[in-house]
């Protein structure tokens, strides 16, 4: 397992999305969902996923689909328990004042939910 060599903004975005999904009932996300939520391009997101996989921060599995579905399978990603701990430390270190950024039309409900809470300034 390699160490995380470079920390870039796209990496932080993807880690943030994956951590939100992890905290939200350990949801698994496929590439397109991550691209939409992070508002990043495909090559960027998959470059980050490659690095996170090399570091052992995330684990991927193929989606289960019916045999009659004649289409390529999606790969679903989730933070590993150790990856989640490291991701939390990384985000606390790099984005201590992070707050959910609304991206209408490009994000899932989980990122908007904190905006609706009464504690939000």
């Amino acid at each position, binding site marked *: 397992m390699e*160490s*995380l*060599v*470079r*920390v*870039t*903004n796209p990496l932080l975005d993807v880690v943030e999305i994956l951590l939100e999904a992890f905290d939200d009932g350990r949801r698994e996300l*496929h*590439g*397109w969902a991550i691209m939409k939520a992070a508002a990043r*391009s*495909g*090559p960027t997101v*998959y*470059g980050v996923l*490659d690095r996170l996989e090399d570091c052992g921060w995330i684990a*991927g599995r193929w989606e289960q689909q019916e045999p009659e579905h004649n*289409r*390529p*399978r*999606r*790969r679903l990603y989730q933070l590993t328990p150790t990856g989640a701990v490291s991701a939390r*430390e*990384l985000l606390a*270190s*790099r984005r201590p004042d992070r707050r959910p950024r609304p991206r209408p039309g490009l994000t899932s409900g989980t990122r908007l939910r904190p905006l609706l809470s009464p504690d939000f300034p």
Partner: protein
Amino acid sequence: MSRGLEAFAGFVAGLFAMEYFDITGWLAHKLVRWSVRLRYREPERLAAREEELAALINDLPRLFRLPTAIGFASTAVVCSLMRHRRARRETYPRLSPGERAVAALRGPGLVLAPALVLFGLEFAVAASLISGFGVSSLAVAALAGLVMGLAAGLLAVVEVLAAPRLAAGLASGLTLGLLITLGGHSAAGFVCGLCLGTGFGLGIAFAAGSTVRFSSRIIGIALPGLLSLIFIAAFVVLMNGGDPLNGGSLPKGFWWVAGSWLTFGSAAGCVAGIANSVAGSGRTRHPRSSQPSPFPGTQDPITSADILRS
């Protein structure tokens, strides 16, 4: 346009619009598969990404499929080039300044130094043509051709072992060297040989100093473009202005300016190539990677400006 033609054009346009997404979808799948094979080397990851990205293309809205696939392909090309570059760098250890100079002379400098000699000869010829120094153009051109041919031969012996793709320089170098030599027998041929030789020198300077564009924005982008323009302008002037030996339609001062631009522009390209090779040959890793990072095992993000600086 008649009504019949309008109807036909509308039919064709509608057909094209209908087929467009099918074609782009097919093309996107092909592009993504190619880019995965270019980008990944590990068999397991390659197979996984091939299927995964095919699924991703299916998930995307139809309008975005081809642009996304082009994005994957261009990233794969960049990754492949960077991997190739990294592999080349890793074959050389970190060098001292003295060793760098030797490495530079052994590498691109080996090609560029004779090119500089050639450009000096060009300058001498240009001077003799314009001011009547009395230098025989035939002798100088023959000497230039000899230098070029020897340089190409030397390149083939030493450089090909380290960089087989430069073997192409052998054939072109010898051919152009011969052209220059033969060009000495006639004024028009001499002008052609002069221009071709300069173009060859510039091409070598750019190819051998391919890392020039990483040195800085000025050297990397502006200079090669400027030199190309100078070369093209000089070529056009020389070819359209007539035969300088037998007296063209333009004044002698014009040839002087054109020849000087050509020579100094080419020489500047060579100097840039040599300077780049000296500066870049000893670096084996990114300079910022040695900086401490507040987060263990990480370093600061590398920006595009850093890449251009490196």
